[in-house]
């Protein structure tokens, strides 16, 4: 297995300078990660102008091309550079809301961002596009309320991803689906979507997201054995006792007196990481393990702590 660092461990703040992000890449390389996965975004006024490599425009503006960026990452010691780019329905919906784009264009917007991202991956010689197709449940219900889109959301998602996968395949890129505890395809509800997709579209389990959704990540790894890619290794102590997943801001529970911290520093939580590793080994999985402590308080510490965990538990 190969270990990648998820840039989601940072807040991906665009206002931080290119210098900061270049140093970050050097630290990722020094820490021994062989790849970098980036939560990739649609164009935005701030994202496109800033130093964080979080959208196509920013990478091309700051590095000239995705190929140059890939070389830069490899020169930093990240042996394989970009392990994958991860796009999400949540980012797509937020971009649409900010730009006053009609809700009917959601799937077109997903296709557009996917094609732009495929272009970046292709230019970089990288092979993995990860898609989290559903925006947050509460936001989806609010935005698409009364629209026929809601009734056909799963079918249209499957149709859109299948087309994206075809396009990606032309560039030798594999598409995988990731599901969050707050989306329409939370937990095992992703199964029905996966059934509608061609076998060439893989599943990218996110351990913490499955755990919060009340599903054993190990069982999901076993279920999708032979169809896995870009496994997200992260951690949580959170238990969604109040149906937080359906609120407008599921990652920031507001209820008085209730636990509020959804993600924790890798290694401090209850996710069965060792069991997941063993299940992956049993399945003969030799792809990417994407290590993340989502929006860590101390990024460098989290970066090293995750490596320490790998050495101690996964060696």
């Amino acid at each position, binding site marked *: 297995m190969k270990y990648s660092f998820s840039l989601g461990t940072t807040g991906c703040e665009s206002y931080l*300078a290119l210098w900061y992000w270049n140093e970050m890449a050097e630290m990722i390389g020094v820490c021994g990660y062989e790849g970098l996965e980036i939560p990739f975004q649609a164009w935005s*006024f701030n994202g496109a102008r800033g*130093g964080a490599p979080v959208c196509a425009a920013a990478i091309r503006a700051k590095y000239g091309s995705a190929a140059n960026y890939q070389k830069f990452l490899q020169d930093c010691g990240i042996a394989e550079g970009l392990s994958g780019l991860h796009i999400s329905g949540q980012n797509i919906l937020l971009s649409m809301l900010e730009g006053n784009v009609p809700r009917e264009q959601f799937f077109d917007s997903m296709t557009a961002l996917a094609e732009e991202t495929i272009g970046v991956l292709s230019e970089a010689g990288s092979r993995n596009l990860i898609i989290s197709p559903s925006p947050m449940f509460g936001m989806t219900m609010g935005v698409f309320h009364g629209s026929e889109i809601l009734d056909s959301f799963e079918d249209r998602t499957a149709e859109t991803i299948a087309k994206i996968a075809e396009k990606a395949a032309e560039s030798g890129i594999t598409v995988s689906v990731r599901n969050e505890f707050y989306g329409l395809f939370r937990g095992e509800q992703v199964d029905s979507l996966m059934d509608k997709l061609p076998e060439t579209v893989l599943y990218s389990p996110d351990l913490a997201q499955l755990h919060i959704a009340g599903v054993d990540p190990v069982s999901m790894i076993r279920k999708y054995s032979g169809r896995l890619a870009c496994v997200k290794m992260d951690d949580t102590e959170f238990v969604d006792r109040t149906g937080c997943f359906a609120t*407008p801001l599921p990652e920031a529970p507001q209820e008085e007196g209730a*636990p*509020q911290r959804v993600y924790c*520093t890798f290694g*401090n939580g209850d996710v069965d990481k060792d069991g997941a590793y063993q299940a992956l080994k049993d399945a003969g999985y030799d792809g990417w393990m994407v290590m993340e402590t989502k929006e860590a308080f101390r990024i460098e510490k989290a970066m090293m702590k995750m490596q320490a965990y790998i050495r101690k538990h996964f060696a």
Partner: protein
Amino acid sequence: MENIKYSFQMNMWGIPKFKQINNLAEWYDKDFTADGYFMDWDNILKYLSTAGYKGIELVWYQIDFIKMVFGSLKAFAEFVKPRGIEKVTGGFSINFGSENADNLPGILGYQKKIIDDLAELGAETLIVMPAGQYYGTGPLSDEQLQNVATACNEVGKLCAEKGLDLSIHNEFWCAVNLSNHEKLLELTDPKYVKYCLDTAQVSIMGVDIVDFYDRWHDRVKYMHLKDTNKPALPDEERFKDGAEYDDEGKRWFYELGAGIVNMTGLYEKMKEHNFRGWATVEADGAPDNLAAMLLSKWYIDNILSPIYR
């Protein structure tokens, strides 16, 4: 009775996430950091009011999240009061693409939603960057500048319908820049379009703020206060792609008193012209929001207020 009341721009605190933190231990245990103190607006507003700020200012992308976190804008307006903050004083937004007349309907639709929200919050002004960044847009032709002015006038009318002012706000990296920012003021209708003087942005652009305020004080109804040590930045620095975010991380903005802006001279003029209204302190680019808001307030209380308060 004070003539100047101080507000704080909330942009550097990010998108509101938590209303209140229930249990600090949840954020401290096993990580040993202070982050838990800075994640909720309950604490942040208390820090602000303790420092003597009476208002807060928002940026457009925070407003929808405020609705989600607090349930409604009305609930948010009520939430701030017992924490010592009188009101939301204003909101910042951008007239993207205003140099092109075809974009006007879209701009009006976009800004109307923000204006309605600000009115519901009880704000007094919409602060508007009049066009996009210089790179890719400037230099503006006379016709394009007129289009920018028309957009300001029309958005200003929407503001007036809701009892708000529109205040033009110059950025050193905006398509409206040193050569035409005063021309834009001339082209806009004083009845609907006021001006928010940003002491650092305008200094970086190459303007003497004391002289500018002296000449335009009738239009200056609002202030953005911050300092800089990089006045009169050359064109090539201001006009490059992504100029606001320097690749090497150079800080453009500093706390009041930490740069070279003639703040005391400005306050002398504000006294002379009897400025009355809100002034927003900003912490753009500061690595520590709490330190920045306290240091700027110290400078106000000890250096500027003795001149004019």
